[in-house]
């Protein structure tokens, strides 16, 4: 596995960890169902993306393509997780 891919996976792991903590927090505080659903979906999608990356199935970057993480995660949260989504999109677009 090359260093750039390894870096991407490590960043994804960090995002998954933050998303899981956020989900736990939202669930424990009986937050709005819509938020909990989005947190669940984020954990699920990031985990699937991580598996794809580890198995060499991540789509090859081209023409400035984004993975849409900041677009979609930024639609429901505005904290560290959103920043990590931006980091991941940027990493994919510029380093892979």
């Amino acid at each position, binding site marked *: 596995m090359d260093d750039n891919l390894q870096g991407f996976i490590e960043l994804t792991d960090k995002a998954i960890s933050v998303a899981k903590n956020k989900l736990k927090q939202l669930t424990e505080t009986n937050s*709005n169902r819509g938020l909990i*659903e*989005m947190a669940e979906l984020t954990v699920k999608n990031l985990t699937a993306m991580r598996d794809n990356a580890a198995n060499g199935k991540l*789509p090859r970057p081209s023409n400035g393509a984004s993975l849409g993480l*900041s*677009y979609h995660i930024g639609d429901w949260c505005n904290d560290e997780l959103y920043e990590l989504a931006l980091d991941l999109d940027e990493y994919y677009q510029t380093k892979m």
Partner: protein
Amino acid sequence: MLDKIDQSALSDQSVKGWAVQTGLKTLKVCVFTAGVVTEITADVARLGSDLPAMERALNSSKESFAKGDLKQGFRHLGNFLGLSGREVGRATVIVSVVKNVAAKFISVAEREPGLINGASRAGRIDYSKEFSRDIARNFKPGYRIFEGRTAKDIVLVQFHPDKVIGAGRSLKYWTSVDEANAFTSTDDIMHKLAILPEWGERGAVSVARIPKGTEVSYCVGIAQLKKSPLTSEVFRGGGKQYLFKDFDPSWIVERRTLN
């Protein structure tokens, strides 16, 4: 469904007088707490009608916010609004939606810029955080940033999840009416606006009208190509999209669910 606020109707009377005249028994105020909406219901009968007293409460609130005491700040704001609402611990912006007391609040807050911690423009949801980075990641080169007053009404369309604002959806991204009218199917929307299906259906559409002369900050350009990290499917983008630095929910004039 959000109603537009007719602030001119409030100019010569108290909020309470307006609410009573309108026949409302309760009013709703939304407090945005780190992007999450908390809705507070206010009993009209408890609303204050003494504007100087309300402004004093606002000033107390301002002092508390300046000291970083958000809890006390919100308590004073609660006094101002005559609310029996629950305590809000952490907040960046207070805005109003629905037919609300906050129309008066907005008029006062606009005379007191910076009244509320983090509020760029009263009544709006603040999306300024990481605005530049969001543009770099999600627009094709050639985008344009506009900051100033609109020369004419701007009508926008948003395809979004059937969720509550701030609880699963935002008001950040919009498209133009012309673009929306050109879409031939849901699939067409997803591809041209580069919306990835694994993040949920776009089960609703909203229309917003920003009145001529309104001060706005947005980026307009072409949606960047996206590739699904799950399926590798390519969503080509190419549709016109707007990204707003802040957005007032009262600009929304229509919301429909899609079949």
